[in-house]
């Protein structure tokens, strides 16, 4: 009963707040053109980097994330940024914390373009499973950041075992339009805003194929077929175009303020080129159709996710400038993954298209470097010459480009965020682990220092608190 009273008071408070804002709108005079603007960033990032030491790493094999390799390389991190990258001639700055990294590798932090940490967290219980708003095939109004639980213990595993410094959290794939994604820095915070990557554009999760037709078909709703999927998608984009026209007209000529529609806001953002499309799509034929849908309605697809058949249309993907986010060797878990091959990533890369290694998995995210290693090896066996430095582009620069943050992170270039991993060996080996991980120049993980091992609130007092993982 006490709880009920509590909720009642809260509800009253919300009602009051609603009234006051209503009153404000009523007092607003007839608007001049475009005077009412939709706030495009109502949940702004509050992320702030933590203080980091001036750091000098030398003697390392550096893979710069753009395809470059420096043996006996040196790198300087300060003020959150990569200051300089070079060979042994790059001298230690005065007062720097110096690390001799002989026989070890330095790379940009890995960026996972497809994660559900926080919206499908551990433990995987119903109370915490917030990834699919499976109540309508089109839910572009939902935002993954409103589901992300910052205390998901998975973030720490991705950091310590996987060297993940940035990740995109996506809604699930039950819906044709799953909602907005959010890009996070892998730095623990009390709020999701505290983890949000400053300045990263939003993404829109879309899905092709089996999942939407299964979820809604089983409820005897549209879509029940792939043709139903596409029809629903096209009708939704047609609505979005109309919404966009209304707002555009209002912004130019004034008149009545169009009715606000949160779903259409997101789609309008895509049509305006501000929100990037991340499209779950397995089969080659379906990707080709989605490319034409995008052309029909005037938007761009950033990346096809789980694109197990990209190797069949790698030429088409190159011509359209679309990335493929892929697994190294997942196959056969559903019909649309039946034609997966181990050479997919290498073939896409070899065709000149953009290849990305992604996880979609709280375990896989801890081993993306190993997944890249398997993909590289499969490609080499098929006769494709791929260097380790090139393969690292699948883990950092390509995902950064797909997320629209390559100007800020994703490679080791002076002026970029100092998101860096020091590996205790060659990161393409099964025998190698992260030794140290910096995010924005701050040492966030150190294998040798148990104090530099994040522990989520959930794990405090549990049997595994603070253990090596």
């Amino acid at each position: 009963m006490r709880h009920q009273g509590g909720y009642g008071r809260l509800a009253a408070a919300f009602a009051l707040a609603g009234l006051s804002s209503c009153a404000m709108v009523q007092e607003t005079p007839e608007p001049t053109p475009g005077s009412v603007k939709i706030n495009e960033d109502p949940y702004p990032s509050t992320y702030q980097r933590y203080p980091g030491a001036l750091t000098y790493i030398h003697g390392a094999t550096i893979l710069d994330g753009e395809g470059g390799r420096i043996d006996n390389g040196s790198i300087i991190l300060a003020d959150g940024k990569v200051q300089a990258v070079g060979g042994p001639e790059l001298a230690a700055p005065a007062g720097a914390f110096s690390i001799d990294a002989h026989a070890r590798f330095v790379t940009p932090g890995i960026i996972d373009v497809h994660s559900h940490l926080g919206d499908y967290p551990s433990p995987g219980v119903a109370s915490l499973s917030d990834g699919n708003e499976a109540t309508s095939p089109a839910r572009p109004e939902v935002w993954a950041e409103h589901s992300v639980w910052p205390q998901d213990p998975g973030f720490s595993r991705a950091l310590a075992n996987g060297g993940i410094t940035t990740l995109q959290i996506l809604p699930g794939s039950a819906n044709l339009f799953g909602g907005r994604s959010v890009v996070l820095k892998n730095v623990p915070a009390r709020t999701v805003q505290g983890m949000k990557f400053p300045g990263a554009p939003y993404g829109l999760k879309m899905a092709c194929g089996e999942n939407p037709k299964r979820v809604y078909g089983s409820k005897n709703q549209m879509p029940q077929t792939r043709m139903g999927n596409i029809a629903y998608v096209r009708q939704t984009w047609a609505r979005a175009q109309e919404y966009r026209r209304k707002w555009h007209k209002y912004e130019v000529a004034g008149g009545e303020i169009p009715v606000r529609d949160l779903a259409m806001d997101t789609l309008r953002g895509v049509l305006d080129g501000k929100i990037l499309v991340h499209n779950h799509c397995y089969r080659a034929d379906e990707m080709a159709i989605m490319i034409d849908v995008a052309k029909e309605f005037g938007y761009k697809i950033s990346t096809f996710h789980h694109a197990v058949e990209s190797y069949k249309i790698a030429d088409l993907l190159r011509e359209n400038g679309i990335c493929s986010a892929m697994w190294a060797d997942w196959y056969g878990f559903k019909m649309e993954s039946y034609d997966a091959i181990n050479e997919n990533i290498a073939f896409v890369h070899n065709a000149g298209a953009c290849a990305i290694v992604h996880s979609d998995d709280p375990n896989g995210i801890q081993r993306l470097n190993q997944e890249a290693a398997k993909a590289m090896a499969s490609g080499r066996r098929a006769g494709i010459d791929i260097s380790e430095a090139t393969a690292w582009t699948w883990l950092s620069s390509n995902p950064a480009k797909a997320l629209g943050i390559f100007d800020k992170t994703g490679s080791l270039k002076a002026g970029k965020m100092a998101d860096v991993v020091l590996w205790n060996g060659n990161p393409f080996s099964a025998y190698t682990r992260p030794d140290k991980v910096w995010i924005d120049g701050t040492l966030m993980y150190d294998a040798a220092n148990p104090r530099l091992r994040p522990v989520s609130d959930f794990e405090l007092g549990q049997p595994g608190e603070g253990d090596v993982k």
Partner: protein
Amino acid sequence: MRRALLLAAALVASTSPLTAQTLAITNGTLVLGDGSDPIVGGTVVVRNGRIVAAGDRARVPANAEIIDASGKWVTPGIVAGFSRLGLAEVDLGADGSDDTETGNSPFSAAIDVAPAINPKASTIAVSRADGVTRAVVAPVAGKSIFAGQGAVIDTGDDMDAVLRSRVFQFVELGEGGADKAGGSRSAAFVLFRNALREAEQLSRRVGPLTVGGEQPDAREGPIVRNPNESRLYSSDAGRAEDVLLTRFDAAALVPVLRGQQLLLVHVERAKDILNILGLKREFPKLKIALVGVTEGWTVADRIADSGAWVIASALNDLPASFEMLAATQSNIGRMKAAGVKVAIGMIDDNDTRNLRNQRQYAGNLVALRKVPGAAGVSWGEAFAMISSQPAEAVGLGGEIGSLASGRRGDVVIWSGDPLELSSAPETVWIDGVRQPLENHQTKLRDRYRSLERETLPEAYRK
């Protein structure tokens, strides 16, 4: 390039049915699979489908076909320690191709996976191509905590996949078991005890049984060769009124009760593990092995004292459920250090298909030795956990899993260290028979290696 691949495929196809009477693989880095360190320049000799010698002093018989494995690694085939291999072609949305689900069956313990295993499943061909030559195959629990009886299979390109059926009874007794039993662990344990009581009633009416290759003593009475088709079901084998199990299911538990069939128990939480070990006091003949065992390290001494085998998930390190709060990748290393007998399995981890990832998992356990505070295992131990140790865990260490004399001739030549991500099998023998390594995936690879438009569509490239 494409032509070369096709030519290579044709060559393999033409040689695959041949069984060399005597085969000697020489000069490779030889791994016995028993936990010992690799032997540089070792030799393994296979005759009539069995290993006859392996080591640095193995003599090459005069009539042997000699294969020079210089620069390569030579190992026993990988054994999938816990799998559902061969039971499903596709897991989801491919009606009829998935035989893992038994939720609508009236039976439980009596279910035998053997007839459902499809030797021509593409998952078997894919596993074979990555050096997995044997697999422990368990049923998935349907309505009951008892999933039924599992088999050990080979992945050879022939119709005889099952090496031995009814090797073990698989039972869920953690969170999964609680759910099947009506909602709680308490309910699951009552159900378990009642099932063994019903088996006990039937057991009084029959003499010796033979299951899983054991040879019982015929002096005790006429031997029942197959408990699933035995006189246990005849009308004179009366049963009490108050039974929950079908006659078939109760009969299937008789060999478990008598300790003639292994009881494979899936548990994760430390307390659940102790509960299972405690069952030995009530049912002293039970032969128990544990599967999953994510929190095993917290009670490692007690598992070691029990002598029970553990087929553990290698890399669980998330509190994925409330029975895995203590999860860490150091689990296996810590259990091993405490004297627990451990193999690697992949329970509920893409276990119909991704068994080829076991070697990556094993390599990751070696990696832990370089992480301060973590517990890893040696290379030899890690390889044994995916070869001889799972075979030992299910009582077939004398048949498969190592290159010891007398074992089945399952041998793989690898391009390099098999626990490394860059390595791949080059040649695979099962029972001494050289195996084809092509499959759905390799054929797609060859078809789409070039996207150049040719004189006919891709569908004509085979």
